[in-house]
C-alpha cells in the first residue's frame, strides 16, 4: 500500500538571531512540529538548507544536533522516571573513573546545572517524584549541561500552573542574557506576545509572516493564523429544525453542550483541548466529572459504550485503527461488530451479515472488492465509511464523529461532508469534532469551543467565524 506524500512544509525560511526568543505560532497542522523536528535532527528536510553560524549544516540525528548545541524540550518529556535527576542529566554520557561510574562527580556537576535553572530539588531526587514543572527543569538542565546555544521548547506551559509558568519565563529571560536562542512554540498567544522578541506565523505548512513582538497583539496573530477564505468545498447548509435537544451535557459551571435531531454541532478547539475526552465521557469510557448527561431531557448514567448505545449514542473514534475498527478482522465483521445481537442471540446468521455489509457498501459507496478480506486492505476514506456504517447499524439518534476526515484524501473528504449532511437531514443529531476550522465553519449549525478541558463558549450564525473560534480556543478572550 502506498500513501501519497504530503508536503508538510513549503517555502518556509526563518532566521533566528543569537540570544533571541522567537515565538512560533500556527494552527494544528500548520507545520510547527515538522519544522521543529527538522531543526532538532529528528527528521530530514527533503529540500532546503539549515545554516548555523553562517555555515550550512546537515543534521544526522538528535545526537548530532545536540553536539552542535541544538536541544529540544519535548511536550512529552523524555526522562526516565526511575532514575535520579543526576542519572537523567548524564544519561548516555555518564562520567567514569577507572571504568566505574563516578557518581559523586556527576552529582556535583548536576548541582551546578540545577543552580543555574534555580531548581529547588537535589540531584539525587528520583525524577518520577518531581512535579511536571520540576521535570521540565531537569530537561532544561540537561540542555544547559550539553552547552546548548539553541533551545527549542514545544508548548512548555501547556502543563504548568501560572506561577510555574512565570518562573519558566524568568528562566528563559536569564538564558537569553547568556546568549541562548530560544525557539518558543505555543498556542497561548498572550504569553507569546509577552515573552518573545520576534514571532513567526505558519499556516498550512507555509510561512505567513515574521513580526516584531512589540508590534504584535493576540487578535492580530489569530487573524494571521487563520487567514484563508472558505472554499466552495462544503455542501450548502440546510437550516436545522427547531426541536428540543436529544443529548445534553451540562457542566457544573453552567457551560453546556447540546444537540438536537437534524443538527450538526461542531466541537472545536486545539489538540489537547479535551474534545475527545468529553466525547469519551459521553460514551462512558471515562468519568464524566462534575457534570451530567441528559438524553431527551432525562438525566442518565452512562458507564460503558454499551450503555451509550442503548441510549442511542454512537461515537466514531478519531483513532480509526486503534479504537474505531478491528483492523485484523474482515470488513463484514467490522460492519456488524457493534450490532451483532441483530444477527442472532447465540448463533450468527452470516448470510444476513453479508447482505447487510453489501447494503452499506452500496449506500455509502465503499470501494472494496472482497467483503471477507481484512479491513486493513482498504484506504483511509473507505475504512472511515465502514467505521461509520458500523455505528449506523445500531440505529443511533446521536452520532459523534471525531476527526472524521483525518487521513482521508480530498475526494473522500467531500463525500464525508455530504454523508454527514445527509444524515442530519434524515434527523440524526451529529456532533462533529474537528481541528480543521474550515470544516467546523463549513459544516456546523453551531460550534462549541473548548480549551484546556473547559467549554469556553458557543458560536453560531454570523458570529461563527474562524477568527472567533480561534480566539476562544487560544484563550484570547472569553465568550
Amino acid at each position, binding site marked *: 500500500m502506498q500513501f501519497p506524500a504530503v508536503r508538510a512544509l513549503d517555502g518556509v525560511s526563518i532566521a533566528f538571531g543569537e540570544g533571541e526568543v522567537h515565538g512560533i505560532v500556527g494552527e494544528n497542522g500548520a507545520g510547527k512540529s515538522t519544522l521543529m523536528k527538522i531543526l532538532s535532527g529528528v527528521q530530514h528536510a527533503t529540500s532546503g538548507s539549515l545554516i548555523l553560524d553562517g555555515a550550512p549544516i546537515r543534521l544526522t540525528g538528535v545526537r548530532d544536533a545536540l553536539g552542535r548545541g541544538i536541544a529540544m524540550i519535548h511536550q512529552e518529556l523524555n526522562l526516565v522516571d526511575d532514575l535520579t535527576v543526576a542519572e537523567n542529566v548524564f544519561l548516555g554520557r555518564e562520567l567514569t573513573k577507572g571504568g566505574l561510574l563516578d557518581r559523586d562527580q556527576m552529582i556535583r556537576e548536576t548541582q551546578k546545572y540545577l543552580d543555574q535553572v534555580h531548581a529547588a530539588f537535589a540531584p539525587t531526587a528520583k525524577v518520577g517524584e518531581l512535579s511536571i514543572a520540576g521535570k521540565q527543569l531537569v530537561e532544561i538542565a540537561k540542555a544547559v549541561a550539553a552547552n546548548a546555544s539553541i533551545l527549542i521548547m514545544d508548548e512548555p506551559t501547556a502543563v504548568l500552573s501560572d506561577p510555574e509558568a512565570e518562573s519558566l519565563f524568568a528562566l528563559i529571560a536569564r538564558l537569553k542574557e547568556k546568549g541562548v536562542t530560544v525557539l518558543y512554540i505555543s498556542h497561548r498567544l498572550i504569553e507569546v506576545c509577552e515573552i518573545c522578541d520576534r514571532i513567526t506565523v505558519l499556516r498550512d505548512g507555509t510561512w505567513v509572516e515574521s513580526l516584531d513582538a512589540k508590534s504584535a497583539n493576540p487578535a492580530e496573530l489569530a487573524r494571521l493564523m487563520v487567514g484563508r477564505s472558505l472554499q466552495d468545498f462544503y455542501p450548502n447548509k440546510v437550516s436545522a429544525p427547531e426541536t428540543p435537544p436529544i443529548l445534553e451535557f451540562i457542566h457544573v459551571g453552567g457551560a453546556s453542550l447540546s444537540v438536537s435531531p437534524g443538527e450538526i454541532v461542531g466541537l472545536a478547539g486545539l489538540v489537547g483541548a479535551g474534545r475527545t475526552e468529553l466525547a469519551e465521557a459521553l460514551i462512558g*469510557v471515562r468519568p464524566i466529572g462534575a457534570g451530567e448527561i441528559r438524553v431527551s431531557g432525562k438525566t442518565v448514567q452512562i458507564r*460503558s459504550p454499551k450503555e*451509550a*448505545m442503548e441510549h442511542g449514542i454512537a461515537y466514531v473514534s478519531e483513532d480509526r485503527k486503534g*479504537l474505531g475498527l*478491528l483492523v485484523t478482522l474482515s470488513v463484514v*465483521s467490522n460492519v456488524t*461488530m*457493534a450490532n451483532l445481537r441483530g444477527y442472532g442471540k447465540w448463533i450468527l446468521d452470516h448470510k444476513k451479515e453479508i447482505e447487510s455489509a453489501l447494503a452499506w457498501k452500496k449506500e455509502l459507496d465503499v470501494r472494496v472488492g472482497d467483503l471477507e478480506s481484512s479491513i486493513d486492505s482498504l484506504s483511509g476514506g473507505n475504512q472511515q465509511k465502514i467505521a461509520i456504517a458500523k455505528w449506523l447499524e445500531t440505529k443511533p439518534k446521536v452520532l459523534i464523529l471525531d476527526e472524521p476526515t483525518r487521513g482521508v484524501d480530498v475526494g473522500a473528504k467531500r463525500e464525508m461532508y455530504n454523508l454527514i449532511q445527509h444524515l442530519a437531514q434524515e434527523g440524526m443529531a451529529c456532533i462533529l469534532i474537528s481541528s480543521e476550522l474550515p470544516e467546523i465553519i463549513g459544516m456546523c449549525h453551531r460550534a462549541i469551543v473548548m480549551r484546556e478541558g473547559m467549554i469556553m463558549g458557543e458560536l453560531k450564525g454570523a458570529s461563527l467565524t474562524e477568527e472567533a473560534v480561534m480566539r476562544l480556543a487560544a484563550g484570547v478572550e472569553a465568550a
Partner: protein
Amino acid sequence: MKRSNLLTEYGALLALVVLFVINVVTRGASFLQIENLRNLISQNAGVGVIAIGMTFVIIAGGIDLSVGSLTAMCGAVAILLVNKLASGGMGPTLAILLASLGAIAVGAVAGLVNGAIISYGRVAAFVVTLGGLAGFRSIALVLGKGGEIRSQVQGLEDFGFGGVAIPFVKNAGGGPVMFYWSAIVFIIAALLASFILNRTRFGRYMIAVGANERAAVYSAINTQTVKLAVFGILGGLVGVAAVLEGARMNSVGTGSVGLYYELDAIAAVVIGGTSLRGGKGRIWGTVVGVLLLTLISNMITAYNIDTNWQGLVRGIVILVAVLIQRGRKENE
C-alpha cells in the same frame, strides 16, 4: 495462495501427514493396526480437551498456566467424591456421573475465579494463573495427603476403557475393539468448540477481545464478561480432562497427574497456528497440534529412542511452529 502461505497456513497439518507417512513406510502394519491409531487419538485426549479450552483463552488474548495443577485438583475431587458416594450405597454409574459433574463444576468455578481476578481485578493472566499453578497443586496434594488417591469403584475403570465398539474390527482375541469414551469426548469437544468459535456471537466477541481489547470496548462489547467466560469454559474442560485421566488410571496421583499439561496444551495451540498475541486462531489446528505431539512421543517409544530426548524434540517442534507463524505475520 502462494506456496509460502500454504506452508505457513497448513504447516502443522503437513508435518503430521509427513510423520504419518514415515511411520507407515517404516513400521507398516504394526503402525496401521487399528488399536494403535485409536490410541493416537485417545492417548492425550485429556491434554486435547484442555488445549481446546486453551485455544479460546489464547484467542481472547489470555493465557492459563494453572490447567495442569487444576487437573490434579479436579481429579482428586472426582475420585474422593466417587468413593464417598459409592460407600454411601449409591450405584456405581450414578456415583461416577455425579462425581464427574462435581469435578467439572469445581474446575469451572476455579476457572471463573481466575477469570474474575483477571478481568475485573485487572491483573495479568500470566500472574494470576501462575498463582493457580502453585495453589491448585497444593490443594490437590492436601486432598490426597501428598500421594495417590485410588478409586474403590470398579465401574470407573470400566468407563476409562469403555467406549463404542469399532464396527467390523476384531482384536487378536476375537473381541471387539473399543473406541474409547475419552477419544469421543475429545472429538465432540473439538467440533463444538469449532462451531462456537466460528458461528456464534460469543466466538466473534472472543476474537474481537483478543484482537484489540480497547477497540472491543469501544464497539459496545462487554469484554469483561467475555474474558470471564473463556476462563470458566477452560476450567470446566479441565474438569472433564481430569475425569478422563482419573478413569483411565482408576486413581489420581496428586503430585504427578497433570504435570506440565499447561505447557503441552499451550504448545498444541501454538503449533496449530493460533496466535499467542490473540485475536486469531483455529480449533482444528489445535487438534492437529495435539495429534502431532502424541505421534512424536509414540514414535520415540516405537523406535526405541531414549525417552529423555522427548523434551528436546518437542521443544524444537514448538520453536519451528513459532518461527513459521512469524513468517506468516510478515507475509501479510
